[in-house]
Each structure stands twice: as C-alpha cells, then as structure tokens.
C-alpha cells in the first residue's frame, strides 16, 4: 500500500510557496505523514528580502491596526480550534493537553494584541536630565528578525516565538524544524488575518543547513533562538553574526515584558528648552 503524504508549503511574502530547490523532508505523525519543503540558502535569502519590505509595511501601520490584526489571528484560531486539537493529538498530546495548549495560545495572542499600543509606555521614558533640555527615550523595533521556534509540541510556544517581535513592530522569519506542521498549518490562519505581505514569514527545514547564513546575512538584524541548539551551531551563528555586530539571543519562549525587550532599540532624543 502506497502512503499518501500530505504536503504543506512555506508561507513567504503572503503566498504559499515550495522550496526553490524542490527538496522536501518528512514529518511522520501518528496518523498523518507530511512532506515539508526544506529551506535552502536561497529560500532564506528570499524570505529576508520579503521580510525587509514587510518590516516597512508592518511598522508603518498604526498600533490600533496592528493590534486588530493580532486579535484577528486569535479569532481565526478560535474558529479552527478543533482542527488544531486534532493536529496536536496527532503529535502525541492528549485531548485535554491539546485543548489547554490551544486556549493558552489564544490567550497569549490576545495578551500581545493588547500590548501593541502600550509597550512603549512601559519601556520608554522621559529622562530627568539636568539643564534646560527635553530628553526622551523613544523605543523602536530592531527590524528584520529571524526566530527559531522551540521544538516543543505547542501552538502556544510557537506563537510566543513570533509575537514579541511582531508586537514591537519587527517583521519575523519564523523557522520550525520537527514541529513545522503546526507552524505551517497556522500560516493558513495568518494568511486570513490581514498581515501585510512579508511581515510574518513561516518557513521550515533543518536549522543546521542555514545557521551560517542566518548569522552572516546582514539584513537579519536580530536572531532569536527559542530552541536548544548545539554548541557548534551556537558558535557558528555567533561568529558569523559578530561580523556585523548582530544581536543574537538565546532564550526559552516566554511572555511578559522581558520577552519584548530583545527586539527594541532605544533612541534617546535631546532638545533644548528655550524662548
């Protein structure tokens, strides 16, 4: 009996695409078997190009607008809840674990949707400097961000790997490996949530294939690794990244104020006060 494999495409620049290399890799779950496009170096470069344009679009939206788009994503998941539960069960979670995780992810998205128009009030400030000067620390998004999703079987961890960056206005290239099916399924709902093309790209493959390029690509301003990766990979990304003083963070997926701090640049503006 020949196996019928389900295929998923990457989500780049608002479109569903295959790898330019045509290569795929397999993710076999309990019931279903999947073929996933394997990200090539060229695919990564294309994603960065898209993300750069996506950053300009996403960052120029009003906070209210961004907030609504994130909230819309939670509504989409809510509407497709059952299918996510089935998918997570296929990954080995019990029905109640799966249900909990989906609900958590919806809550997480709503939490960030509500943070979009407030975070700068929590992280920026007027500084009481001496003399007749107005001094304000304005907060800006770093820009194109690459995030490596954790390998946990969790929609909640997945959304925590791109929401902090999106919340502050960065565009994101989200990369998944073993749990890519969850991310690529989510990309369908992302596509229906009015994100500007390129603001959130979802790709998958073997991280070790592209780690050097993630470190070396100067247009990737920040790489955040939410997964445990090998010391070798850490060294490669660090060494390549150092060539352009790239911001690189290693952290577990979390929420809270600390989750957004790595994605912010602080710009302090001085102006005299006079007549």
């Amino acid at each position, binding site marked *: 009996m020949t196996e019928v494999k389900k295929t998923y495409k990457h989500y780049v620049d608002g479109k569903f695409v295959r790898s330019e290399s045509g290569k795929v890799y397999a993710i076999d779950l309990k019931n279903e078997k999947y073929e996933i496009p394997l990200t090539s170096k060229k695919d990564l470069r294309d994603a960065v190009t898209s993300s750069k344009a996506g950053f300009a679009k996403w960052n120029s939206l009003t906070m209210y607008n961004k907030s609504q788009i994130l909230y819309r994503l939670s509504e989409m998941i809510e509407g497709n809840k059952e299918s996510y539960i089935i998918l997570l069960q296929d990954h080995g979670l019990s029905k109640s674990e799966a249900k909990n995780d989906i609900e958590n992810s919806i809550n997480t998205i709503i939490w960030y949707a509500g943070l979009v128009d407030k975070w700068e009030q929590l992280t920026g*400030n007027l*500084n009481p400097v001496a003399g007749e000067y107005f001094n304000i620390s304005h907060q800006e998004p770093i820009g194109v961000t690459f995030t490596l999703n954790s390998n946990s079987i969790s929609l909640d961890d997945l959304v925590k790997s791109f929401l902090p960056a999106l919340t502050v206005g960065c565009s994101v290239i989200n990369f998944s490996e073993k749990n890519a099916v969850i991310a690529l399924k989510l990309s369908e709902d992302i596509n229906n949530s009015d994100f500007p093309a390129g603001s959130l790209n979802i790709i998958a493959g073997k991280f070790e294939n592209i780690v050097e390029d993630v470190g070396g690509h100067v247009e990737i301003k920040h790489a955040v690794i939410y997964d445990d990766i090998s010391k070798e990979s850490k060294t490669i990304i*660090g060494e390549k990244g150092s060539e352009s*003083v790239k911001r690189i963070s290693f952290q577990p997926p*979390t929420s809270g104020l*600390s989750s957004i701090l790595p994605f912010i640049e602080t710009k302090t503006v*001085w102006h005299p006060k006079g007549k």
Partner: protein
Amino acid sequence: MNNWEYAESIESEKIVNIEKKYGHFIEGEFVSPNSKKYLDTISPSTEEVLSSISIGDEKDVDFAVNAAKEGVKQWSKTSPSERSKYLFKLARLIQERSREFAVLESLDGGKPIKESRDFDLPQVAQNFFYYAGWADKIDLAWGSGISKPYGVVGQIIPWNFPLLMLSWKVAPALATGNTVVLKPAETTPLTALLFAELCDEIGLPKGVFNLVTGDGTTGSHLVNHKDIKKIAFTGSTSVGKYIQKSLSGRDVGLTLELGGKAANIVYNDAALDEAVDGVVNGIFFNQGHVCCAGSRLLVQEDIHDVFIDKLEKRMQTLRVGNPLDKNTDIGAINSKDQLDKINELVNEGVNDGGELFQIECELPKNGFWFKPSLFTGVQANYKIATEEIFGPVLTTLTFRTPDEAVEIANNTEYGLSAGIWTEKGSKILWTADRLDAGVVWANTFNKFDPASPFGGYKESGFGREGGRHGLLSYLKASS
C-alpha cells in the same frame, strides 16, 4: 594695544601623588603582578613617563575573577540599601577629590583641564549618585521578572573618558548586585587606580571591585575566562567584533558600545551661529576622541559657503596646547599610535581630493598634537567620509533635501549618534524618527546625563548605558 593674549593659567600638578609603580587591585588590596611585567604610562602632552603599571597575564586575571566570585557571595549578602550607601559614599569621595582626579585625567590622557574639571568629574560623581539610588529599587525599574544580577562582570573601558567610562560601567554593575573585574585602557590607567584606592577607603567588601591593568592581551584573558558571566566593552568596532566572536557558543552576556561616524545635519533654516558652536563642540570636544562625535557635517547645499565661513572663523578661536592650562580648548592626542592613525587618514583625505582647512596655531614641541581640521569638497566614497578618525577632524558633505540628508546620514555601518539643526519643530521630529542612531541631539550636541540612555544601533553596538535602560545591561530575566 589692541592685541590681547590670554596669559597661561596652569592648574597645579602638585595635588596629585603618582606612585612609581602600580600593582593590580584584587580582593581589596594592591598586589604585584604574577607576570612581573610592567608598562609605562606617559603624559601625551610631554611624553614624560608618569608611572609603570602592571601587565595582567592569565594568572593575574584568574586571581581577579576568583576574587570577584568570592565577592559575589559578600555582595549578595549585602542588603540593597547597604549597597546603595557604598555607592553614595563613593560619589561623595569622588566629589571631594575631584580636583585631584581631574588633574590626573588631564596628565595621563591629554584632555584639557576645563573638560576633566567641568565635564568628566561632575558627570562621574553624578553617575555614582544616580545609580546609588537605583540599588534598592531594582524591582521597580523593569519589574521583579527582570532583577537578577549576572554575577562576575568583566568590564573593558577605553582611553577617551577613562574615569567617566569606569563610572558608566561600575556604578550600574554594582548597583544591580554584580561584582566587577575592570580592565582600564593601557594608556590611561591612573584614575582607575586612584578609584581603587577609594574603594578601599570606604571599605567596599573585598572582591566586589577588582582592577587588572594591562594591554590588549590582558583584556583578551578577561574575555576568555571561564567564570565570567558577562562582558561589557566600550571601544573600537573591530575589537568589539573580536570579543563577540570570542564569546560565541558561550553563555556569557555581552553589551558593546563601539565606534561611530555621526552625521551632524545642518538645515538651511537653523540658527546658524548656535549650530556652528554645536558643530565645533560636536567634533572638537575631547580632541575628537569621542565615539559619538559629530564627525560628518551634513550641510544643506544652499548655506554651505556661509556656514563653512562661519565655522572656519570659529575654529580659529580654538586654543590648542597644554592640557593643564585652564584656557586650553584642545589638548593632546592620546597616544602616538592614535596620532599616526589620524595623520594617515587625513593624508589619505588630501590625496583623495578633499580640501583641508587647518587652523593657524603653534603646536608644542613635545607630545602628540593635531590641529583642528576641516575637510570640504569631500565625496561620499572617500575614506575620511566613512571611517572613524577619532580625532579633531571634521568632514563636510552636502545635501539638497531632508530625505537626502537622512539617506546620507544612515549610509554607514555605524549608528551611535546624530545631530539635527533646524528651527522647525516638525522637521526635527521627522528627521529624528528616520535616523538610525541611539542618541539624537537636536539643536544641541554632545550632551550627557546619567539619566539619559546611551548606546548604538547597527555596528555601533548593543545595550544601553545610563538611565533606567542602563540597568538592563546588568540584569537578567529570572525564570
């Protein structure tokens, strides 16, 4: 009768007491170096040897890091309000002895006494005061989720603002509960050594502040030490990249404050006389040895000639000479190496076709000096338009529209600071929003305050020093 020269007004050197030789300051006392090696620190304005300082080798660094590890135990047992008091005491002592520090800074580093006296030292004391007050309020800064110290922090500081950079590093590190191994620059170690004496004097628990002097190899030992939890570095972009590379694959925190090539944008509707002052202060402050110096003058094409004329006349009033003369505006270049580098870049600028203006002035025979210089007729591809010169050399470029100004300003790998000069408020905000720079000075330049975060975008580094944001450089999220 009309000629009016200012007579020399020299600050007395007698106030400082420099030892012939210095050890490292480890675990609360001065110790001879394991390396048994020393290097001379000289006065760049006379080339006179001031003292010999120890060169820290791997063992010396290891002793210091171990002392700092022990220090963590002490320091974490010290209540936040007690930590706060130690920092307040340090601030007070610095104020009391600020004249001594100022003279020492000018002797060892070559900067004019009016700057060390009126800028560096007041800022240093204020910075300790500022962070002293944070020590018992860490939970309030970023919430209790971000309030854990790293432990042992290695700090490597530059020669341009030796004691000020020490204060930017040490005060927030200690306030947040870390302990420190500090490596001052090889050409300017003396004020850090005097600071170590103050730590002893106030009875700071042993091992909380440790000082290892030396050169680049000493710094490299510190970066590579296995027990260091975090490195904070201020210096050149190339060394910063080297440090980041060295730390790859290791779980060590890092903040970098690196080079710059700041654009100082003068629009045609600026208050030109004040803009001239700001541009002069932006590049000639501290001989241009300033990472955030406004080294690229971007002037709107239609006012180029008027502005350059005003600028050259104003530059001619700058007084170059003995750093200890209270009337000196421009002191000595910090080292022979730095002078060579400046000379090389300036020669290249002339060969490329840049038009060089230098003020007429007499330079002292001994020591390292460079005349305040201005390049016009510069094209964007000249090295002097892209490379950090770190000296009293200003490069002029022109622009036609605000969009073009922003484009030129951002056309660099650096992103530390920028300046904007215009009387039109909305143009300031429009421009500031679009500049890739961590500090933007509008209608002013080179202003600093302990409450104001400082640090770069892009290859000027990451992390901030100063203000509430400065605490983040020394705190981890507790999970």
